[in-house]
Every structure is written in C-alpha cells, then in structure tokens.
C-alpha cells in the first residue's frame, strides 16, 4: 500500500530514534522538575561533537561518546544556572540554544578550515539475520544502525528506572513535591543535577545520531527543530516513558511520510485513509475514556455531541474517499511543514488529559527563601 511500504517504516523508525533518545532524556529532567528548552542547542553541539570525534578517531562510537560529552558540557551550564543560581529555566534554555548553534558552527568552521577534505563514514546498519526478512516491519526493526537499538533499549530502561527503582521514586518526587525528598535527607539539588545531566547526555547522543547516523556530516542548524519536537513528545507522551515512545514514533512517522509525499504529484488515497483512521481511533479512545471517567454528568452530553459530529464528518469523509480519489497537491516545501503542523494538532488533541509534574519549572530552595 503505497506509500506505507517497508521502506517507509524503516525510515520512520530511523527518524524517530534520535527524537526518542532526546525526549527520554528530557523526560527524566522534567520529572525531576527542570524543563530544558535548550535541547536544540545541546543536540547541535552533540552533532558537531559526534562528527569531530568520528572524524578524528575514525570510530563512530568514539564520535557518539564525544557527542554525549558535548551535550553534558552544555547541561552543566544549565544546571549551574538553574539549580545553583536559580535562574529562570526557560530563559537559560533559550540562551543555550543560541550558544549551541553558535558553538557548533564556530567549531565546525574552525575544524574544516584546516582540513578541507574531512569526511566521516556513516554508522553502518546492523542486520539481525532472518528477522529482517519479515514482511513490512522486518527491515524497520531489524536492519537499522545500532543507535536505533540503543534508543529502543532506553525505553524499558527508563521505565524500570522510573517505576521500579528508588532513584526513580526520588526523581519523580523531586518534580512533584521536592520537600518529600528533602525531608527524607535526599538532596533535591543532586537529583536535579542528575536529571539535567542525563538530558544533556542523551541530547548529545541524539545530536550525534544526526551527524553520524543519518547524514554523515555536520550541517549548521541540522537539528531543524528536533529539540523542540522532543519537548513536544514529552508533553504528548504525558510524562510517561511509553507515552514518549509512542509520541516519538508518531512524529517520526509524520516526517517519513512527508519525505515520501514531497515527491508525489498528489496525495495517495492510502494517506487519506490512514489519516481518517487515526482521527477515528483518537476520537473513539477519547469518548471511551470520557464515558469511563464519567463522574461529571453535567459536561458529558455536550462533549458527546461535539464528538459524534466529528465522527460523522470523518466517516462521511472516508465514504467520499472510497468513491472519489481526492486530487490534493501541495508544493514540496509545504510538505516540510507537515510534521510541525501535526505536532500542533496532536498537542491540541492530547492536552487537558495530561498533567505535568507539579513542581516543574520551580526553583527549589531548602527551607524557603524567607
């Protein structure tokens, strides 16, 4: 079913992976109470760090390590400013994006000025023999670069850390009721440092993923908003590891779709069907949830009407699609905007049902400020 073939799924997962890695890091940081708007900048230094490391050592893994360290370096600035000096988290994040953009390009220009013919080899795919021959998803899941597997492995890792370890309980407390940690003699400061550094490290790896895994070189501004997409993925994922996983896949899928459709003369029917199906699934799940949590009879009837109207519209649309092929064309440049528009739409659909950590964004002072 064009364009949803196995190549699409392989691309979707490949594109989703750096997003996933970065978003999981941000999840840890936000759970600890620090919102990091500077992911984009951290990814950029990670991307350059990865390029530099790989070019110098001819080893992609060394590159990943350098990218990680570069991300951590910016994260240290973030931690010192927001945790120690209690600066506004968003302001510092904005500044880090600027610094990251500046440092990465500055360093890149310095580096290539002396070595005009520098290049790196992209990380090679690792095939799991046999499994990659499975139809549709085989190559998507089992013929990818190792960093993709790293991203997927991080999901259960973060999940276990969050819900099964003492550290996870403490991290979650630091973002909800930091006093609970502090009065237990657990340092909120330290937990938040850990959260911020983890976010920086994973953002660095995510950046290195772009330069080493996806593109094979460093480009100025090559993150093109992925840091912010990761931020959105944490919100859409409802501050839960599995939710973040799903959100990253969704955004990855949108980007892969966009890449496909850019070159098409018009939007294939299957795309419309998938969009309608997604909308229907979303609606049904919303309705089910609303009815199940039906403690509020006062508001329910109105919502039902709004929901059912939309459902009918979507069904009608689907019927029309069955009869007539819609001839919609979009300039390829506008297709590039599709993932961003989808992000906004998903945020609008999801929010109101998720709760952010209660102490997110608040500086913590032991014993109060008096």
């Amino acid at each position: 079913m064009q364009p949803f073939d196995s190549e699409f799924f392989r691309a979707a997962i490949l594109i989703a992976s750096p997003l996933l890695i970065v978003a999981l890091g941000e999840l840890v940081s936000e759970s600890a109470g620090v919102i990091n708007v500077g992911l984009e900048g951290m990814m950029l230094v990670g991307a350059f760090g990865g390029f530099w490391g790989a070019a110098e050592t001819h080893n992609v893994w060394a590159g990943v390590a350098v990218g990680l360290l570069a991300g951590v370096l910016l994260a240290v600035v973030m931690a010192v400013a927001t945790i120690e000096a209690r600066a506004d988290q968003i302001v510092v994040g904005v500044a880090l994006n600027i610094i990251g953009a500046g440092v990465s390009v500055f360093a890149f220009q310095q580096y290539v000025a002396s070595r005009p013919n520098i290049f790196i080899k992209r990380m090679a795919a690792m095939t799991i023999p046999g499994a990659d021959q499975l139809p549709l998803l085989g190559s998507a899941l089992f013929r990818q670069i190792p960093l993709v597997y790293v991203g997927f492995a991080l999901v259960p890792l973060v999940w276990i850390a969050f819900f099964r370890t003492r550290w996870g309980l403490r991290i979650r407390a630091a973002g909800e009721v930091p006093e609970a940690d502090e009065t237990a003699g657990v340092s909120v400061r330290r937990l938040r440092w850990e959260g911020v550094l983890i976010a920086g490290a994973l953002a660095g790896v995510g950046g290195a993923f772009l330069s080493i895994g996806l593109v094979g070189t460093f480009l100025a501004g090559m993150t093109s908003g992925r840091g912010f997409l990761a931020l959105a993925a944490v919100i859409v994922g409802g501050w839960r590891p599995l939710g973040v996983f799903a959100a990253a896949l969704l955004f990855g899928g949108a980007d892969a779709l966009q890449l496909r459709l850019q070159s098409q003369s018009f939007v294939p029917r299957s795309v419309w069907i998938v969009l309608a199906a997604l909308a229907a699934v979303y609606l049904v799940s919303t309705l089910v949830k609303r009815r199940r949590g039906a403690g509020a009879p006062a508001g329910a009837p109105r919502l039902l009407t709004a929901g059912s109207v939309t459902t009918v519209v979507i069904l009608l649309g689907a019927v029309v699609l069955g009869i007539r092929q819609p001839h919609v064309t979009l300039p390829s440049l506008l297709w590039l905007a599709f993932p961003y528009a989808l992000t906004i739409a998903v945020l609008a659909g999801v929010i109101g049902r998720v709760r952010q950590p209660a102490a997110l964004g608040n500086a913590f002072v032991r014993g109060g400020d008096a």
Partner: protein
Amino acid sequence: MSMAQTVGSDRSPTVPRLRLCGITKRFPGVVANRDVSLEVHGGEVLAILGENGAGKSTLMNVVSGMLQPESGSIEVDGKPVRIRNPADARKLGIGMVYQHFALVPTLTVAENLALGASGTRIFSNTRRIAEQVTGLSRAYHLEVDPHAVVGDLSVGTRQRVEIVKLLFRGAEILIFDEPTSVLTPVEWHHLVRILRNLAAEGHSIIFITHKLDELMQVADRCTVLRHGEVAGTVSVAATDKAQLARMTVGREILFQVSTKAARPGRVVVAAEGLTMRSDDGRPRLDGVSFELREGEILGVAGVDGNGQRELARVLTGLDAATGGRFRFGDEWRTSIQPIDFYRRGGAYIPEDRHHTSVALELSVRDNLLMKELALGRMQRGGVVSERAADEYCTTLMQEFDVRAPSPRVRIRQLSGGNQQKVVLARELSRTPQLLIAAQPTRGLDVGAAEFVMRRLVAEKERGCAILMISTELEEVLQLSDRVAVMVDGRFLAVLDRQDATYERLGLLLGGEAVDDLGGELTEVDA
C-alpha cells in the same frame, strides 16, 4: 517483631535527648530567633507555644536541618552536633511533620516511604516496606494502608502517614508543626493518644502550637516563645491557661470583641442544594442550602478541606457549581463571574493570602487598586487616573493602619498582619452588602487578628451580610449570629448563637463518630 519497643532505654535519663543553646537566626530585616535555649527529654512531650511570627517554625527548621542558625549550639544525648542538612537530622533520629505534608500525592504510601529508605539498594522493595508499614501502623494504632495512593487519603490519614514515615526512618525525636488545624476533634483525640503512646515508648515529642487548649491536653512541659525569644518554660501541671496566655503575648489579654445581637434585614444571598464536583467526580460541595440576611454574620465552622473553600469560590465566581443554585441579588444562578459578584456589592477575603488575595510581587498600591480597576473605576479612557488612585490608597492606608513606608513597596515586604489589612481595606472600601471572609485571621498575631475581627463586627452593624468561614471555633463562636457546621461538603447543622457551644460544635464536627466520643472527651479533659 515488636515495633513498639522502648527506645533509648540505654541512655541516661538525666541527660536531655535534645538541647538547644543560644540559637540565633536572622533573616534580612528581621531576627527570627534570638538566643533561644530549650531541652526535651526522652518520654516527654514538650510544647512550644507562641503567636504567629514568634519564631517557632524557624526554630524547628533549624533543628531539622532546613535552616542554619547564625549562632548557638545543639546537643543530642549530651553530645554537641552540627545539623547541616535534613540528612544529618535524620541520622540523629530527628524527624518533623510539617504543616504542609511532605508527601508525593501521586505515589502510594509505601512508595513515599521507599524513596526515603536508607541503604544502597537500587530497586525499591515496596512489598517489604508495606509489611513494615503494617507493623508500625498496628503497633501505634495508626491505621495506615500501605498500598493507598496518598492523593486519595484524608488529611488526618496523611498526617498519620507522616508519623509512620518518621518512625520508619527511626526517628526518636518527633517534631509536629501546628498539626491540628487540619484535624477534626475526633482525629485530634486520636492524635493525642498516638503522641502519648509514642512518649510512653520513650520517644521525645516536640509539639508546636499557638492553641492553649491543645497544649494543656497533650504536653508535659511548655516553652513559650515571644518575639523570637524564650519567654519562659513551665511545667503544664503547674500552670494554667491564663498564665500561658500572658507569657505568650506579654500583656494581659482581654480578648472580647463585643457584638450586638443581629437585627437581620432582607435576604442578601441564598443557596439551594449547591453542589460542586471535582474533575474526578467526587463531590466537594454537596447540597448546601442557606439564607444570609443583612446585618448578620453566619459563621461556617469546620475542619479545613470540608468544602468551605469551594463554597466561597462558587459564591464569588471562581468556580462554577455543578448542581443546585444560588442567588445574590434577584436572579437564581449556578455561576457568576467574579466581576459581577463585585458589581452587585460583593466583597471577598480569600483564605489563601499568598496565592489568591494578593499579588506578592506587586506594590501595596497595585494590590489596593486591583478590584477598583477591574470594576472600571479610577480610570479614564483605559488610563489609570493617577491622582484619584493615589488619594484612594493614602486614605485607605491611614484608615486601616497599614504600616508601610510607601504605597509603592512590594506587598511581599510587609508582615502578614499588614498584608491582611491591605486586603481588608480593599474589600471594605466599597461598603459591600455581602462579605465572604475565609479564615480572615489565619496567620495573624493577636493584635492584627483583633483589628480584623473588630472591623468585621463594625461592618455587620452597618448592615453588611457576612459569611465567615473559619477553622477556629473560638473565633466563630465569638462573632457569629448563627453557626453552620460544615462536614464533607454539607451543612450538618445551622445553629443559633445561643445553641452553639464549643462542645456541641466539636461533637458535630466529629461527624458519625459522635457517640463513642462522649466518654473520651471527659477523660482527656480530666
């Protein structure tokens, strides 16, 4: 395994468990504690009594490692110690139950304990902890379910979770910071029993309070703080309330606000079956009906969190009712915009000063002006009329004795009493027909509280209808013409002043446990 074994039995009984010598703690612009010394022994309940602002909480934050004193020393079991952070305090067996509990509402009881568990285990063993909770809970009659999610628990239960938490961490010196404003009388008696139990097992209890009655019931000795200094330490058996009150305030208090009997006029506000459900479907307000007339004060007595806050918020338009209706003016409705509430002559003193009634970072002037400007006054063509506004502020600050160097200082920089005077001035400046006053004296020292109460009575005598919500029974009894008892979002009873006695209210607030309480009450009093 016996959890309730006697603690510290190997220590010498003559050496105090905890001893503070000459503690001094300053904040910018103010000395919170000056040269404070006190001691508490094993098996003893020591009360620390003082007005709001006397420095009690600061002192205990020093003991629990949240704050560092400028000078003074601390000894535990006769050995000098340094408490640099809460972890140090914990190692020394010091634990504190805060007014605002330090529990994560999204986690279960066992998980809340697990996050503070010591040792180097990586994985949280909540099952083992749950067993320990059950054991401790049984040993001390705490009735805590380890698997309950904290957010679902009542305030009284959360307090017991805090106690379990401290015991679980091996605390032997337990500090309670004003633990009772959130408790029903029944829960209070439960707490008294728990505290006496803990003391009997050899624990040391420090009980911070500003309420004399409570102290007399639970404490062995009492240290009185005044203006950040120790005014004296007495044995509870050898003193009486009058003496303690004198020590607390430093002068004779004849705290009687005289109020004439009401001559109620027409009905100003009425409610029929007012109901409000929260998002999870639980009723916060459950079928409240009442009428309030000109020139009377209807007191709403109740323990925090029984729907008083929601009642005030629905009537003033901050939240909408989900059922029932109310009337302010002529038409019945289920909701009102805040601005319409004020337009109709409403005034509102919210309970939560720092989060609702004032904007801390704005000036005194801005805080005085906010409702005038929202009402479209003191302005011309959308521009603030500076001169009219200045005049308004100066007059009000004089009339209400707001002590601030200038109307332009941030209201954060004023004391609680002065902040509340600003709120009072703002609300009363409109000569309202209806005043909803929630916890109007909370957190104020005696002088400021008295000022507020006198103004409320004056307003009533002018003809204003007042709905006064308070957790302090004395205050309700002193001011109200009628008293509504609020439990679980309902008005359990509306009593006339002569029928409303302290004992009767106490019993009503206990809800269904009224019957088996009778004997216990007298027992504790005796």
